């Protein structure tokens, strides 16, 4: 197997891939739609500011005074109810104004006010609420008659650690789109291989000096490059390569290896195009499951971690959205490498048995 033969095979696969209308459309339109979607989605988090307040000694009308243009006040029955509501993300924050607090404020003593923040409240909102609360209490103290307040906020974070929730939707969607682009290649490469078996062109190649290992190398390189380039293009166009480009690219390459291995397996399990469609749709749906966990934190359960796509997704998410370091995602990369090599080996072995 030499470079000339490899070049000829790759060129042929590229021609065939893009002459297949379905794949040509899906590749180009997919990429355009993903990038457009990312660009069109708001880059900021859009959440209404509702503040839960538990103030047993104050009349509701008085509590409403805390509110303003952008903030709605929701009085609560009890401290527990307030905490629960914040934990359920009904409100971004909650304030407790007990009788003691009120009298402390009235006396002008240094007073500690308890504030609950939802753990998934975006940082901008937490900051905004702090400012609003400070302004509101200042207003209150002047109204009540006098000295500037000596207030201290005792802040409590309520709810599961859902760091991802602080991201704008489009940033949460980005790793999902990257995985989508990657796993679509199972269908693309799978049918490219199955088609050669089905139409017998594979036999024509194999009576030339092209060998089975050479042929598989060509297909694998084609699939790797295609999945990798598409995903890299997507992340490149959406700023995903800004922080740790090398780390992200290596993640994509390892992910592409996993995908190519799957494509070989799908091709050897299928007879013709329809078989590839059926198998790859199943694989794509499975592989997308971990993504739901990023879009809707807390939804995906632990079993999703048996899927290799979990590690693709987690790594891309951590690195692109939180600037995670090599150390932090090293374990993921090792798992991806092992999964990639294992799937690739299995795929080549079963495909070879089918071809011979």
């Amino acid at each position, binding site marked *: 197997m030499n470079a000339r033969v490899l070049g*000829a095979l790759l060129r042929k696969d590229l021609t065939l891939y893009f002459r297949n209308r379905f794949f040509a459309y899906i590749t180009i339109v997919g990429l355009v739609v993903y990038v457009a979607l990312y660009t069109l989605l708001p880059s900021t988090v859009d959440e209404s500011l509702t503040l839960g307040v538990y103030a047993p000694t104050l009349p509701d009308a008085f509590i409403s005074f805390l509110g303003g243009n952008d903030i709605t006040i929701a009085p609560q029955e009890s401290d527990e109810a307030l905490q629960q509501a914040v934990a359920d993300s009904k409100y971004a924050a909650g304030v407790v104004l007990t009788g003691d607090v009120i009298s402390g404020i009235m006396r002008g003593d240094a007073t500690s006010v308890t504030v609950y923040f939802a753990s998934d409240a975006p940082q901008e909102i937490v900051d905004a609420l702090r400012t609003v609360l400070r302004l509101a209490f200042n207003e209150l103290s002047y109204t009540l008659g006098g000295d500037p307040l000596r207030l201290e906020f005792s802040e409590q974070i309520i709810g599961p650690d859902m760091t991802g929730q602080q991201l704008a939707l489009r940033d949460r969607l980005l790793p999902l789109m990257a995985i989508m682009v990657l796993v679509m290649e199972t269908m693309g490469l799978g049918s490219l291989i199955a088609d050669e078996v089905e*139409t*017998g062109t594979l036999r024509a190649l194999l009576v*030339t*000096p092209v060998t089975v290992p050479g042929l598989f190398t060509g297909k694998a390189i084609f699939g790797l490059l295609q999945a990798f380039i598409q995903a890299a293009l997507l992340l490149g166009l959406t700023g995903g390569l800004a922080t740790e480009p090398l780390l992200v690219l290596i993640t994509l390459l390892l992910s592409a290896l996993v995908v190519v291995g799957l494509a070989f397996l799908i091709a050897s399990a299928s007879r013709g195009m329809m078989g590839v469609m059926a198998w790859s749709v199943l694989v794509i749906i499975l592989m997308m499951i971990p993504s739901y966990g990023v879009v809707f934190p807390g939804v995906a359960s632990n079993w999703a971690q048996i899927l290799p796509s979990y590690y693709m997704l987690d790594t891309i998410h951590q690195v692109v959205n939180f600037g995670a370091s090599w150390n932090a995602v090293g374990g993921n990369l090792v798992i991806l490498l092992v999964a990639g090599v294992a799937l690739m080996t299995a795929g080549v072995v079963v495909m070879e048995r089918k071809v011979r």
Partner: protein
Amino acid sequence: MTTHSIVAQDLTYAYGDNTAVDHISFEVGEGEIFGYLGPNGAGKSTTVKMLTGQIRPKQGKATLLGMDIVRETNKVQAFIGVAFETANLYGQMSAVENLTLFARLYGVKADVHALLEKVGLDGRAKERVEGYSKGMKQRLMVARALVNHPRILFLDEPTEGLDPVSAQAIRDLIRETRAGGTTVFLTTHDMVEADKLSDRVAFINQGRIAAIDTPHRLKQQYGKRLLKVEVEDGGGRLAAREITLDASDTGETVKRLFEREKVVTVHSEEATLEDIFIQITGRRLAG
């Protein structure tokens, strides 16, 4: 012809329990057109697959150009061209692209357009092959098999389904290729074609070789030569008479016929390869 392009010894292949090729041995001389004849399912294509390195013989061996096909598959494959029984072309590519791809795989420069002209496809060279008729695909298959100027050309029923003109063009191309020194292994069940083209033919039946020789000698050996005579009876109607040549009393019989009857026409008739095949194997050719 002292050197052999192909030497098959005890070649055997079975699909499960079905022995498709059963201990076959033969030799094909360099520059020879070797007709490989047999009914459907006789094992012709299976033999071609073994000789071209597509499947491994279960027993026996084959040597092409002095190289073992199993041990030196890729080396051998650089020197052979194969036209398959059923078209396996890249449908989404044009004829030119198909041929160019294979020229690249062999690492040879090929005059793709001249080749396409030879098989009569030069007018539609840039069209996608999926739009070709069956016969056009068949012709492109032959062109593809020639792209590396092979020293041995394998053709598995190359004229099957072609119109007479196209079939003739392919036969001319086979002769022309042989004139350039290429050995041709031609599989067919068209006996007339085999007779016209082949230097030697092998009859294969149920995986075994039933006879192998030049068409001429096979006819001499097995065929009865006949004299077909038309005579006119008293009422002006024609009647047919047959006289076997090569019999001990042939001269006497002919003499008697001419003396007693009114002979209108006389033809000598040789047995066809098909007659001989049936005689040897007890089977018809067409499936």
